[in-house]
């Protein structure tokens, strides 16, 4: 019964691990969140979080032959849940660096902002990574 209900609110996308496809996923999220009546600011945050998660999945997460990234959406009453899954070699989630916000500009301009940004702009973030791949699940409340 519950699974049936979930199916009725689930949208699944799979995209090749290829430059530009992160925008396709972001635009889909835009239309889904418009459909659910989200406000503009939150829509932009959801889009950016998906872009960051997809780029990571493309860059670090898709060494496997398949090179496909899954982006799954669950439309709940009060939130939208997005899960980005890759089948790459994974990473040690506990070792994500944080930029010291008081550091000089030169330090800030180094890459490594993606996951930090996702944490700041989404309401719930859960990253699971193993040698079989990475799953990042993020939610935004309405």
């Amino acid at each position, binding site marked *: 019964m519950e699974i049936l209900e979930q199916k009725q609110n689930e949208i699944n996308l799979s995209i090749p691990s290829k430059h530009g496809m992160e925008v396709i996923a972001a635009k889909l999220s835009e239309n889904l969140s418009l459909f659910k009546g989200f406000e503009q600011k939150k829509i932009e945050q959801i889009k*950016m979080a998906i872009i960051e998660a997809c780029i990571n999945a493309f860059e670090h997460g898709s060494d496997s032959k398949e090179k496909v990234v899954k982006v799954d959406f669950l439309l709940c009453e009060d939130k939208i849940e997005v899960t980005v899954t890759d089948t790459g070699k994974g990473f040690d989630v506990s070792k994500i660096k944080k*930029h010291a916000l008081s550091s000089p*500009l030169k330090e800030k*301009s180094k890459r490594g*902002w993606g996951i930090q940004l996702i944490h*700041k702009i989404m309401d719930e973030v859960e990253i699971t990574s193993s040698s079989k791949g990475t799953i990042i699940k993020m939610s935004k409340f309405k």
Partner: protein
Amino acid sequence: MVNFSISVEEKDNYVVLKTDGYVNNLGGRAIADKVHDFMEKGYKNFVINFQKSEILNSIGACILIEVLDSILEVEGKLKFSNCIEIIAQTMEIMGLTEYIDIYETQEEAENAIKD
């Protein structure tokens, strides 16, 4: 959709860059190249109007930090205008709001540079 272009307006002592498209590594690099071209001509002050950029990524944003850094090195000014909220929020998260002022309109940004 994933394309990027910049148009340029040369003013008295500053340059306005209007971006169109996705501010990713390519978009960011295109902005950086234009700024460096004009810095070589002697300009130090820049307005970037983001009206036609509805998405960015963190790699693009990092290149904007580099751009800011080179402008600050010559004691120039960098102002943004017409940003969607997520661009402003990204700048804030990256701790750049003390270095870059963001204005609603290009006119306001230009006035602030003239001061």
